């Protein structure tokens, strides 16, 4: 069941496009913001609300890498793995995160705190290497700083 708040926000998104289906990416994002990820039940509810089939909506949901069709942790770590961050040594950050948190890309820590994902270029290449945690961008990150940064997320 979509909540009243979710319905209100999705209706707003529908308002700026000519037909309901066109708001589906926005709707997925709205529901994901509230529930962290898109479960099969959420997918069906959104599809019904937008008058489209769950299969059609799932074809869209699975295309976009920032729509999560599997459960994720409370915080998402996006590690930039594109060219400038590679040149500047992002692998050290990836390895540090992996050993500290005990997870690989696509995995979530046992306490549900962090999910780590690779992400294409974050568009801040003059300050590489970079990563994002939730909506926060960190630039010129060193492995030493990472522990303190992670402590900010409970």
């Amino acid at each position: 069941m979509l909540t009243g708040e979710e319905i209100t926000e999705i209706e707003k998104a529908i308002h700026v496009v000519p037909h309901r289906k066109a708001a589906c990416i926005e709707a997925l994002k709205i529901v994901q913001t509230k529930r962290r990820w898109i479960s099969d039940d959420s997918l069906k509810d959104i599809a019904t609300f937008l008058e489209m089939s769950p299969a059609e909506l799932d074809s869209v949901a699975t295309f976009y890498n920032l729509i999560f069709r599997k459960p994720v942790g409370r915080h998402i770590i996006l590690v930039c793995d594109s060219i400038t961050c590679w040149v500047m040594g992002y692998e050290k950050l990836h390895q540090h995160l992996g050993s500290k948190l005990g997870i690989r890309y696509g995995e979530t820590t046992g306490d549900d705190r962090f999910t780590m994902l690779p992400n294409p270029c974050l568009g801040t290449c003059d300050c590489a290497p970079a990563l994002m945690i939730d909506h926060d961008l960190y630039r010129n990150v060193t492995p030493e700083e990472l522990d303190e940064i992670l402590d900010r997320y409970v």
Partner: protein
Amino acid sequence: MSEKPLTSHIRADRAPLTLREYEAKGGYQSVRKALLNMTPQAVQAEVKNSNLRGRGGAGFSTALKWSFVPLDAPKPKYLIANADEMEPGTFKDRLLLESAPHQLIEGMIVSAYALQADTSFIFLRWAYHTAAKAINIAIAEAYEAGYLGQNILGTDFSLEMHLHTGAGRYMCGEETALLNSLEGKRATPRAKPPFPQVSGLFGKPTIVNNVETLSCIPHIITNGAEWFKTLSLTGDSGTKLYGVSGKIRKPGLWELPMGTTLRELIEEHAGGMQLGLSFRGALPGGASTDFLVREHLDVRMDYGSVAAAGSRLGTGTVIVLDDKTSVVGFVKNLIHFFAQESCGFCTPCREGLPWIEKILHAMQSGDGRKDDIPLLELHTRYLGPGNTFCALAPGAMEPLQSALKYFREDFEAYIRERASLEPLTA
């Protein structure tokens, strides 16, 4: 009149100006000038005279692109700002989006007037949260001040503007894939024709322009096409946001005259190479451009000159390759990106890119075979222009084909030194 029109009004702390502050610095003058004193055709003519070329990467003439929109077509007609900056190594539109949102909105209003579009979208990549906040505030201020909405400045021109944030995927930056994404579909490219100017978003006439391109429009209208041409050192007019990243002393982003040389960017503005490293090559404008090497350092960074040197200006953000970084590793990272971001719509791209990545990985792992280099070259042809719906695969081939040309010995070394295997084919 500033020599750096796009960035001179940006504060040192990069916080965006309020609408009133922006107006005090001359902002929104072009909206008054265009809507009150110029016909849409006159605005288009001014942009045509300015020789403005698209700053998203392709460098297509903005006025020519606009000219295919039927002015008398029934509404709705759409104008879209492509703010899905995702070309690896590119970080130029971020500055304009975070720190100068009113300049973009002003450019969009004037452009929409020139095209007689009534609805506009800013398609912003998900990761640019700071920009999203700044744009939402700026759009609200522009509605409040009467620059957006019904009957702008008391004229019969009306324009709605919406911010759309994406959900990832590089493909969304491709013009027609962006339209599919805005329609709530998978971001796969569309067949052309019909071109978006005739049948674009929801089947209506649509123009998609890059953020930096649209941000030039207010200045062209306010100060004139002739002035815009004088900003440049070459035939391609205006200024350009140039960036340099990699192992140089001072990575950064600068607004400079169009046609500034690659040497000036790297040696002066970026402070030269880091201690102990030397310059080996550079991608001049993002991941999908051909390498330039030492002999090209004096090439002027404009569309024509970089093309004459065998590459593309692309986004104008340079990625430097130093002599201690593995060329094969560098190219493999790029190919990994393109393989992952391929939408899977066209077979050469979907199948070819992962194959190339596997070949490069095998080379690095000591499993390189003698026919790997000819096989890579075969791919650069099969994935090259003309075999796919969009430019993703041909773009991916640009760094590969030029790396094979300029740094062939790096590829050969992997095979000579490490591989003991016989070639797969005779």
